[in-house]
């Protein structure tokens, strides 16, 4: 009898904690989503009343800055993903397959520059960009993102190559393949699932990046995160429009989470 009661109690506690976790993680997102479909008059008590509207989204999408910012962020993230992965794949392969002082010093370099706080180099980078005339342009935003990704993703890329048995590459080398051939024709195809996972993470992290956007972009090339931040600090009272913008900005994240979660998890596991 007591054992049965304890058993039920344990199940109840388990169910309650799962429900609590669900509420904690979904709650704030649900509040944001609900606010985004309420008219301006219904924003302050979002759980009261039944007026729902999609006008907030229409109104937000009529603001040219928001649309432009989303387009810019999209282009920037895509370019940054392609270029960053193209650059880091060689670096990760080198870290994984070779040894010696070059490999060790490159690893140390990457680790040390990963610890440098962004603000410490983005602040002077702002001076560089204004001097070179590439402040607030794609190129001026793209290259710093790639520099960040070099430190982040070389490490992860090394992990993926570590998980691939190198004997195929050795066989290719013995058969007269060049080192480049062994890398390009043998190792790279085998690492493709890992690279796909990294591509998704890389794209999202560029889309979500805020400090670079805040410092290095302005009126000409607005990005979605800095545009949102401007909304929050300047028009902090129009919560319905704010929420609609936020919901639009989190669409890629939602899509990736629902359809690409296998890849996200693979990328996060290192």
């Amino acid at each position, binding site marked *: 009898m007591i054992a049965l009661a304890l058993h039920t109690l344990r199940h109840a506690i388990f169910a309650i904690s799962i429900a609590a976790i*669900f509420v904690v993680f979904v709650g704030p997102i649900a509040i944001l989503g609900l606010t985004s479909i309420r008219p301006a008059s219904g924003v302050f008590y979002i759980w009261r009343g039944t007026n729902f509207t999609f006008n907030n989204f229409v109104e937000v999408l009529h603001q040219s800055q928001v649309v432009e910012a989303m387009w810019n962020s999209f282009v920037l993230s895509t370019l940054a993903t392609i270029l960053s992965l193209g650059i880091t794949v*060689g670096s990760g392969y080198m870290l994984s397959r070779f040894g010696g002082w070059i490999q060790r010093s490159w690893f140390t370099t990457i680790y040390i520059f990963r610890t440098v706080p962004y*603000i410490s180099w983005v602040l002077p980078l702002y001076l560089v960009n204004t001097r070179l005339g590439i402040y607030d342009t794609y190129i001026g935003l793209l290259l710093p993102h790639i520099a960040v990704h070099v430190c982040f993703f070389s490490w992860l890329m090394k992990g993926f190559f570590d998980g691939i048995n190198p004997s195929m590459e050795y066989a290719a080398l013995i058969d007269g393949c060049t080192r480049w051939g062994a890398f390009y024709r043998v190792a790279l195809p085998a690492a493709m699932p890992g690279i796909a996972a990294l591509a998704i993470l890389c794209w999202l992290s560029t889309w979500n990046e805020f400090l670079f956007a805040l410092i290095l972009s302005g009126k000409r090339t607005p990005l979605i995160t800095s545009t949102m931040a401007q909304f*929050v600090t300047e028009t902090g009272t129009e919560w319905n429009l704010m929420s609609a913008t936020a919901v639009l900005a989190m669409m890629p994240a939602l899509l990736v989470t629902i359809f690409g979660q296998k890849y996200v998890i693979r990328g996060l596991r290192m």
Partner: protein
Amino acid sequence: MTARSTKFGFDERERFMLFLIAPAGIVLVCFEIIPIMIGMNASFREWSLVNPQRTWVGPKQYIAVFTDPVFLKMVLPNTFVLMILSVGVSLALGLALASLLNRPFFGRAIMRTIILLPLTIAPVITATMMRWSFNDQFGVITIFLSYLGLPDVAWLSDRWPSFALVIMTDIWIWTPWFTIIMLAAMQGLPPEPFEAARIDAATPWCIFRRVTLPMLRPVIIVCVLIRAIDAFRTFDQVWILTGGGPARSTEVFSVYAYVLAFVDLDIGRAAAAAGIGALIMLFVGVGLYRLVNRSMEVSR
């Protein structure tokens, strides 16, 4: 061929290695190392919007930052409190969540999807929704808490509640990261030690403490290392939630340097602050790395 390779000092294998890292190295030098140099140069100068002569003043700016009471009494403690609490609590909660999710139950797939959301949503958006949910008058969570009979808290107008909100937001974002990595690590553990412990009638808590935790130790250490480094540069959540306020009481290091540069327009002083932060992180980073290396060897 041999003559040429000795002349350059690199053999064929080493040249291939350098070739592989060359693009990454060039980007790193041009867009990280050179800016850092320029920043260091600027930090020894008087360089602001009102005084743009850039006269060399030696370590004056560093002294100014180190004698700034805001930096010493607010920024440094805030930064390290945020770092320690965020990493510590997220790790503990992450381990707890991973243990909960590490068993089959109805709806497990949905829970795993939901847990990914905080990681994929931009911190700017997360901070925005927290700011709205904890709004003093109309925030759903504020109203819900007072409905439960808890005392009303003006979340964003006092120092400690605002800072607590910043930390909670950070924990909300990073707990799932720990959960996913710990869950993956737990599923990769061999089953025999758990079976042995169960045969010896160990309690679940005892199994967790004496079997799971020690086996997860290498993963935990690496995660803490990575998160601690990243927590130091937290900017987005603080900037959106409090902007460093009220009265600069929730400023962390990145916000402090940003405000110096783009609000006070004092480039020289900002560069000095940024340099100090980079140096602190260099020491913390190298120290942590040594620690990790040592404990990993011990655990092997």
